[in-house]
């Protein structure tokens, strides 16, 4: 593996029945970068994230994270290696408070179980304090601190997107997979997301960003991978992608989203 390569995806493949969703996709990702994955609707972007996260298993190829092959692992195991994600359709725990949602984000970094928690062992109490502290910190990061004690279902849509990010950051991950974090947001809100992603990268976290909002993508990406019908049709720096003929053709007939303001 290359010296700074965090993630290497090699020739992964996913079929759903007769439909080929991901076809021999490969790319590498260096530490501390923001790599975006774009493509028309149905290109397989979310499927790709699901494959990395272990939600789906790849039928061929390898996924290697920091020299660990992870293609056979389950999501919770992958989470413990330092990869987390947000979801395209909000996947918050609506039965819990905003704070508790972020606290669950920290679950993978903590260990106390049934016994130590029931009997209030010091280890459990210390861990609980640390979880709370980290959770408040992350809420502060995304600007939701005042809403901490409310139910997650009481948040606005934009706030829920922010909460998803806070939850993802709670485990101090190495790699964050953001699945359309700006979808459905207005121009101001997209700017906030953009700033947030930059801050995340600034903290040393690597980001894979799936997005439709081209302004956002072109603005913050270090590199872009373009998928169409499950195949990678282009990869490179934003300027290269913008001028890539194949990419433009793939998007023709597709309205490229620009945030309404």
């Amino acid at each position, binding site marked *: 593996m290359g010296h700074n390569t965090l993630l290497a995806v090699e020739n992964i493949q996913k079929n759903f029945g007769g439909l080929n969703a991901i076809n021999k996709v490969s790319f590498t990702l260096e530490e501390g970068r923001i790599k975006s994955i774009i493509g028309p609707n149905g290109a397989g972007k979310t499927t790709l994230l699901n494959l990395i996260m272990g939600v789906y298993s790849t039928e061929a190829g390898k996924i290697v994270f920091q020299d660990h092959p992870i293609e056979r692992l389950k999501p919770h195991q992958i989470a413990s290696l330092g990869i987390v994600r947000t979801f395209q359709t909000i996947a918050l*725990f609506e039965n819990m408070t905003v704070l508790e949602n972020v606290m669950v984000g920290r679950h*993978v970094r903590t260990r106390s179980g049934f016994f130590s*928690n029931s*009997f209030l062992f010091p280890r*459990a109490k210390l861990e609980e304090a640390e*979880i709370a502290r980290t959770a408040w910190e992350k809420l502060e990061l995304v600007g939701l601190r005042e809403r901490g004690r409310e139910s997650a279902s009481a948040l606005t849509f934009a706030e829920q997107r922010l909460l998803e990010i806070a939850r993802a950051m709670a485990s101090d991950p190495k790699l964050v997979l953001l699945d359309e974090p700006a979808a459905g947001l207005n121009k101001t809100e997209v700017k906030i997301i953009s700033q947030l992603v930059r801050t995340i990268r600034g903290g040393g976290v690597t980001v894979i960003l799936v997005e439709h909002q081209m302004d956002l993508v072109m603005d913050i990406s270090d590199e872009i991978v373009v998928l169409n019908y499950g195949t990678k049709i282009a990869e490179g720096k934003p300027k290269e992608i913008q001028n890539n003929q194949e990419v433009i053709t793939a998007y023709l007939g597709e309205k490229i989203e620009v945030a309404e303001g």
Partner: protein
Amino acid sequence: MNRRDLHPYRGIFILLAITAISPLFIRSHYHINLMVFIGMYTLLTLGLTLLLGYAGQVSLGQAGFYGIGAYVSGILTVKCGINPWLALPVSILITSVLAFFIGFSTLHLKGLYLAMATLGVGIIFHILFVELKNLTGGAIGLMDIPSLSIGGIKLDTDLKFYILVWIIVLFIFFLVTNLVNSRVGRGMRAIQGHELASNCFGVDPFKYKIKVFVLSAALASLSGFLYAHYINFLSPSVFDFSFSILFLTMTIVGGRESIWGALYGATLLTLLPEFLRRYEDLNVMIWGLVLVVVLIFFNRGMAGGLDFLSKWVQERFKKKGGVRIGT
């Protein structure tokens, strides 16, 4: 430790007060006996509440684990002369291992596997209790089970046993409250909220579901142990399928989303038959009706109703500009 730290335990303090004061007003053995049963049934139901409310699973065989707890201890103390307090861990261990095996075989699969497996196991064990006559005394029963002793004091009166049972129940509620308010409780609620997302943040639903199931079985066997050494006699008829349904009814009626629902359900369904003594024949029919009505109209059970009521009261207080009751 300040007031805020003790806040989650306020229910336990209230219960402690109620159970401590009650014997001063209730003198009849009959009523003390009832309250002992409420305590034991609360433990049984609590297991189901945790299983249903936190792991989203149904067990149709809780009476089976209840019976195993009772008979293992009964047999060890009567036939092998073992001290009951030594039989207790054996009883719980055997039940837990069995539950682990069942859970391990069924809980990684979606659907109603656990419900069906517990249905089968519960009924099979009931049949074993009846048929293994040399061991269990069969339908005639297992007799002369010794009472428990603590520090030389024999717990052979209703009142003494009442004290033991409620100390145990209070302690269990203390443990469960801690559990539910912890990382573990959050993890389980996250599974209920969005299983896939919880998985992506390190919660392994399989592991948690098994642990909750084993816990529910362990609580049942603890209850069985207490029953055996209280009544000093075991008959298979109290460990059959209809009792599994009764405990499930207590869970639903009491409210399956709150651990206190176990107490409410156990209390109501133990006291109600006493009030309806005259209409004893209507018992089964009423249970069925209550279960159906609660499930359709009062989904959150008594605990949900109380929660709703207290929130309503708080809202009214707020509107009147009165002193705001702490949340």
